[in-house]
Every structure is written in structure tokens, then in C-alpha cells.
């Protein structure tokens, strides 16, 4: 079961410059723990006291996990996890 995790520019120091890394797990939390085992330091930039950090947005297949279970959001083989910093929006 492999999930692709896309890493924002600012966090690529933890992945040796890689834009995307592979992870495994049935939930986002498991995927993050799995990725952390090969890229130590990453988890603490995403997670703080068992929650996502305030200015970090994580999407599983484009859906914001804050509305689909948070760190317990389910993940499945072939899913794409995107990590992005929170930004102000568009033509507004």
C-alpha cells in the first residue's frame, strides 16, 4: 500500500530535496509516521500535540483532511497526499 506525499519547497530540506516521497499506512497519521522513519524531523513541522499545525494544510486526493477525519483521515493505495502552507486566496 503506497501513498505519494508531495512536499512543499520549504520542507524539502527534510527529504534531501525530493518533491515527493512514498509513504505507507491506512490513515494519514500512519503515513506521516512511516515517512518520518526515513525523513526524521518532518513530522514535527506538520503535527503539533496530535493535531495538524495551524498553518499547514494537508489534502488527500485534493480534499482538505480537516473536513475528512484530520490525522485519522483514511488513505489507500495510489492516493496522493499534498502538503501546503496556508495562503490568502485568489481574485478577491
Amino acid at each position, binding site marked *: 500500500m503506497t501513498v505519494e506525499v508531495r512536499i*512543499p519547497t520549504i520542507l524539502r530540506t527534510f527529504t534531501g530535496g525530493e518533491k515527493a516521497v512514498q509513504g505507507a499506512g491506512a490513515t494519514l497519521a500512519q503515513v506521516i509516521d512511516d515517512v518520518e522513519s526515513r525523513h526524521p524531523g518532518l513530522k514535527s513541522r506538520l503535527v503539533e500535540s496530535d493535531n495538524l499545525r495551524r498553518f499547514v494544510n494537508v489534502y488527500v486526493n485534493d480534499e482538505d483532511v480537516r473536513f475528512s477525519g484530520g490525522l485519522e483521515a483514511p488513505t489507500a493505495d495510489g492516493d496522493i497526499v499534498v502538503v501546503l502552507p496556508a495562503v490568502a486566496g485568489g*481574485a478577491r
Partner: protein
Amino acid sequence: MTRYNSLADSVGHTPLVGLPSLSPSPTVRLWAKLEDRNPTGSIKDRAALNMIRVAEASGRLKPGSTILEPTSGNTGIALAMAAKLAGYRLICVMPENTSVERRQILAMWGAEIVSSAAAGGSNEAVRVAKELAAEHPDWVMLYQYGNPANAEAHYLTTGPEILEDLPEVTHVVAGLGTTGTLMGIGRFFDDKKPGVKIIAAEPRYGELVYGLRNLDEGFVPELYDPQYVTSRFSVGSRDAVRRVRELLEREGIFAGLSSGAIVHAALAQAARAEKAGEAADIVLIICDGGWKYLSTGAYTTDLDATEDFLDTQVWA
């Protein structure tokens, strides 16, 4: 009644049109609310005019005032029209990587533009505007990201118009920027028809826009309250462009790029309802027309080249 005392008074009451070709079945229907039919051509007329109305009523805005606003375009354009008519000076802080048409239109109505750096996108425009506001305490920053009058405009007008035109509505899909549209519509349905799903479509920009600053310096608009949102989707430029082209091809609607992101999220909701065998009446917001984005090549250039270009821009 379609007679109004002035252009500003004609804001709102936009048409809600069916999308028979994009709707998956007679029981799962899509409806587009055409916000490009507002006085300056975008949904932002509602927020801008209401922010001005409230600021005038409270005495914050007075004849001769200077208005300052961080905007990536449409709010600035709406404010520029209103400021021109009321005699206010308007200064817009805009990321330098926004479409050229937006600058031309702002200049046409007499707005002054301060450019903020491309990297960081609208976050950077907000930061620069806050700095300028601190240096010029006499300027009035309406500040759409934190001004309750922004969300209130949609609570008072957009939400009620949708419910009146389509009492059977099940979903409303809108763009997420300042969050004003979604917060106003979300609160309205929470009060009047709880259970309507409020879906946010957020543009996913290229790496340049997210910048290289520390994650702890991120930005969440002060107006945002996630309790009024059911789910939130991130839509990249490629999907947004594909959908504006599909909307043009199949329904004849010429919409701007953020509307493409909204159509993409709405179609996902429609597919989900269809698969579950549930009836749905899904309203999606067309924020503006495509005119201001012609220079991006979104309607004419091949998809790969368009995507590469848009990934350096604040396209929504």
C-alpha cells in the same frame, strides 16, 4: 423591478441558470449563479459595496477619505468603481503576478496600484497593506479578509437569492479566498436551511506563490470559521482551465479561472451524489467572466503551456 437609482444600487439579483449538459441526470442537477452580471463584473461587488456602506454609516469613511486594500483584482475593481463615484482615493496592493487586464481596469477607474512581490502571492499583499496602514493611520483599510461586512453581504443577499430561486438546494459550491462568500452563505443556510452542504473550492497555486517563508508565518483570513464549511477541495490550475473550457464548450458560459476550480469541485459532488443514488441540486458560483484572463492563454493556448504559465501566477 429592474430599475435602479445608480449603478451601485444594481448589485446582486443575479440569474441562477441550469447546466443541462453538465448535470449528470434529471435528479442530480447543477445550477450556476452568474455573478459576472454584477456592476463591475464579479461577485466582489457585493462585498465591496457593503464594506463601503458599513464604513460610511459608522463614520469611518468620510468625503475625501483614502481607501487602502490588499486585493488580487476583483475587490479592487469593485472598490474603484464605488470610490470613483463617491470621490474617495483608492490604493490597491496587488501581487505583481496577476493578469494585466486587472491592472488596466483598476487604472481605468482611477485606482493607484502598489505592487507586492510575486513570491508569497496574496499573503505578501496583505503584509504590505498592513505595513502601509500602520504608516498612514488616516487611510481607511476596509480589509476584506477580516471585515465582517464582507461575509454579511452574502448572508444578506447571495444566500437568500439562492434559497428563493431554488428552495430544493442541497449543495452550494463557492471559491475560498477571503472566505467571505462561504462564511456568509454558510451562516445563512445554517440559520434557514441547515443540512445544505457548503463546499469550498480553493485554488492550488504553483510553488512560487507559496513562497519560501517559514510555515509558522502562514495566513488564515480572520473571517474564516471552519464550522460553516462541509468540505474543502484544493484545485490546481490544470483542472481549473479544463473546466472553464468545458463550461464554455458545453454550456456556453465564458467564466474566469476561479470559477473553473469551483465547477471542478461541483462536478465531484455531482458524481458522488449520482453514485450514491441521491438526488441533488448543486449551486455553483461563477465569480466572474473570462475577459480579465484572456492574456493568460487559458482559453486558447495548449493545456501544458497554460499550466506552466499559470503556475507562476495568482490566477484565481
